[in-house]
């Protein structure tokens, strides 16, 4: 079996202040719901760059910005899912 692909979750100061601690378990649950946890592994990253637009996630070369615990579910299904499915 191939190694899982990383989905990077920024853990820098700014993103941390904006709720990464709460985003992490949510995100893990969403990956499971869509059976992406078999191919994608959630990993912590140091600063991904656009701090003003935290929280920031990164998959392959795509950045997802302004993610909050509140908008995560919508952003995940509407936007991130199609990128992540490339890993299947």
């Amino acid at each position, binding site marked *: 079996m191939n190694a899982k692909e990383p989905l990077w979750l920024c*853990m820098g100061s700014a993103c941390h202040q904006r709720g*990464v601690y709460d985003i992490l378990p949510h995100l893990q649950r969403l990956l499971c719901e869509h059976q992406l946890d078999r191919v994608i592994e959630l990993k*912590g*990253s*140091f600063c991904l760059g656009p701090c*003003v637009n*935290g929280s920031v996630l990164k998959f392959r070369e795509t950045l997802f910005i302004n993610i909050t615990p509140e908008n995560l579910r919508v952003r995940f299904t509407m936007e991130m899912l199609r990128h992540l499915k490339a890993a299947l």
Partner: protein
Amino acid sequence: MHDFLDIHDSSLFRHGEELCGDQVRLVQAGDRTIAILSDGLGSGVKACILATLTSQIIATMLGAEAPLDEVLSTVIGTLPMCKVREIAYATFTVVEVNQVTLEVRVINFDNPPILYLKAGHPAKLQHRVEKILDRDVIISEGRLERGDFLAALSDGVLHAGLGGAMNFGWGRDNVLKFTEQTMLHNPGSARAIVTRVLNEVNRLYHDEPGDDATIMGVYVRARKSLMVFTGPPLKEEDDRGACDKLFAFAGRRVVCGGTTTNIVGNYLGMTIEADISTMRRNLPPVGYVKDVDLLTEGILTMARTLEIMREVKGDITRLPEDRNGAVLLATELLEADYIEFLVGQSISEYYQNPLLPRNISIRVSLVKEVVEFLREVRKEVVVDYI
């Protein structure tokens, strides 16, 4: 780089007293480190004032390089004399060490003889008795070497267990033997040796010391060095040089800051992963990479590290058990004797936001506070702004 002069003192208060009649002062005068232990006769307030007076006069005068006989005559002349017993009210031991040459001079006025161990075994310094103002003062001189441990004691240490666990108290030979045993276990720091011996004193007193008991230990050992690289340099072209410096540093290495971590990652050509298990609600996680002992987020972690170090008053043994960024960083800082900060002054635009809480304001001022605290707890700190 020369060896480190590790000095630690600790006291037990006489049972029921709120003040200690033993006082310790440390002065740094150029290359000379002067440590003074004074024991005021009796206990409580009076003893505390006498010992404070004595140690402070000596600290001030020896620090200003006043000749020994003048210092002693000022102290002896100032101290009240007990009319019945004809003895001075505060005894003292001065240990003066040159940090570079390790030449040592011990001046003992009526305190118990010092403990001196060379390579873990009892040894002796050359000593002579001088009469100053008609009182005997014992002066010992010599040169310390790595591994030497020298300690001044107040008599409460020798009297441990008097009339209780031991008929006549613990006694100097037993104290020396116990210290020798302690040294066998490679204690690593003056704090560890002093703490173990003093714990034994307390045990012999059944946790109710009959007298103030103080040990002031001086331990010569290899210096533990640490470099902390925090914050991106002002000019990007200096990134490489900063990393060169970090990896050339002989000692432990810590990188503190997300962007700084990325700079190091680029230098090594690696993506540095954060260890999510160390994330806490108020603290981002840490990371690890080859040849760096710890990587943490910057501002939040450092602010919390400072808080924790203040809470435990710089005592590494009292740090919280939790394995998070702030505790790990505090451990690195408090473990080291010599710390070199490499501080990048470039400010992330995120921190320009006036709505942010103050504790994540500006790195430079936070680093300054950390440095100030570390110096207070006797760390040698060098700061290099880039």
